[in-house]
């Protein structure tokens, strides 16, 4: 997070980050059905058992105040290694262990150039389409109720 400056023009990092951002908002069922197109039960090893814990969220007022602890969020994390050796990581808000495992698997597959294209086409593209559609609809609903405020300036002095 916030490391954009640390990796300038590093497309592998931004591409991977975009993939994980898509998966963060995805449903476990749609990741699973997309992955089914890449083969049944992709072989992998769980390097660390999937576990649920808390992370402290920090806030900062006005962008330049001192950081303060806002509260804790429940997070489930998974780390898997696929047979070709890539290690995939995922941290998912909530307690969905299945989704965390699937997202970590997607991360590992994304890192392997031979499966990246398939993953983008069968898993990420349909999810992006759905998310984009929902966002567009929300934007339309919001735009329909938009009110513009004007302040008329009195001609003083």
């Amino acid at each position, binding site marked *: 997070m916030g490391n954009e400056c640390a990796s300038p023009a590093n497309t592998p990092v931004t591409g991977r980050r975009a993939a994980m951002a898509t998966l963060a908002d995805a449903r476990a069922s749609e990741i699973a059905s997309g992955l089914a197109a890449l083969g049944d039960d992709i072989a992998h090893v*769980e390097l*660390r*058992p999937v576990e649920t814990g808390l992370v402290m969220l920090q806030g900062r007022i006005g962008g330049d105040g001192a950081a303060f602890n806002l509260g804790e969020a429940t997070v489930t994390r998974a780390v898997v290694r696929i047979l070709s*050796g890539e290690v995939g990581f995922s941290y998912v808000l909530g307690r969905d262990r299945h989704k965390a495992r699937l997202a970590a698997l997607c991360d590992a597959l994304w890192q392997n150039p031979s499966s990246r294209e398939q993953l983008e086409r069968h898993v990420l593209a349909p999810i992006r389409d759905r998310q984009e559609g929902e966002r567009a609809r929300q934007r339309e609903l919001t735009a329909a109720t938009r009110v513009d405020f004007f302040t008329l300036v009195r001609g003083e002095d």
Partner: protein
Amino acid sequence: MLAPAFADPVRASQAVFRAVMDAMARPGAIVATGGLARAPQPLGLAAAAVALTLIDYETPVWLDPALAQSPDVAAWLRFHTGAPLTDDPRQAAFGFIADPPRMPQFETFSQGSMDYPDRAATLVLQIERLSDNGGFYLSGPGIRGSRALTATPLPADFAARMRANRALFPRGLDIILASATMLAALPRSVHVATELS
């Protein structure tokens, strides 16, 4: 390639913690450690289980040259424990030693200060053979009378080093001797002799 650690991290690390605590409370007593199926070579299973249980992001770890030359060991420890690895033994809270006969002198490690004796390092020595006869005769807190312990291989002057370590009390190093699946502890309070007094 990165290998998994404890299959059941919470229970396994609690069991190993209990084993280490019992071993520290009864210096020289040999206890079993379990829960770990594999560890990256040349890190022993018992030493690896102790590492997973005791070290974390706040405890700098020093590896002896035998362990440091294996990138698998460093990667495995960093991934599973988050502990920073250090080249400077004085900075280390834990030292892992796969080749005890060539280990550095005790003074190279932090032995704590009179104000903060708890800042002394704990050394985990990988031992090939651990048995409860001959060799060293231990006495002190946690031991009724004396207790025999054999551990090989160790530096030739190990008993003398332990005597010097005892003289520093309450400062001094704590030692864990780890064989393949068993371990024994020599806390800083123990008296080590080579003959039965």
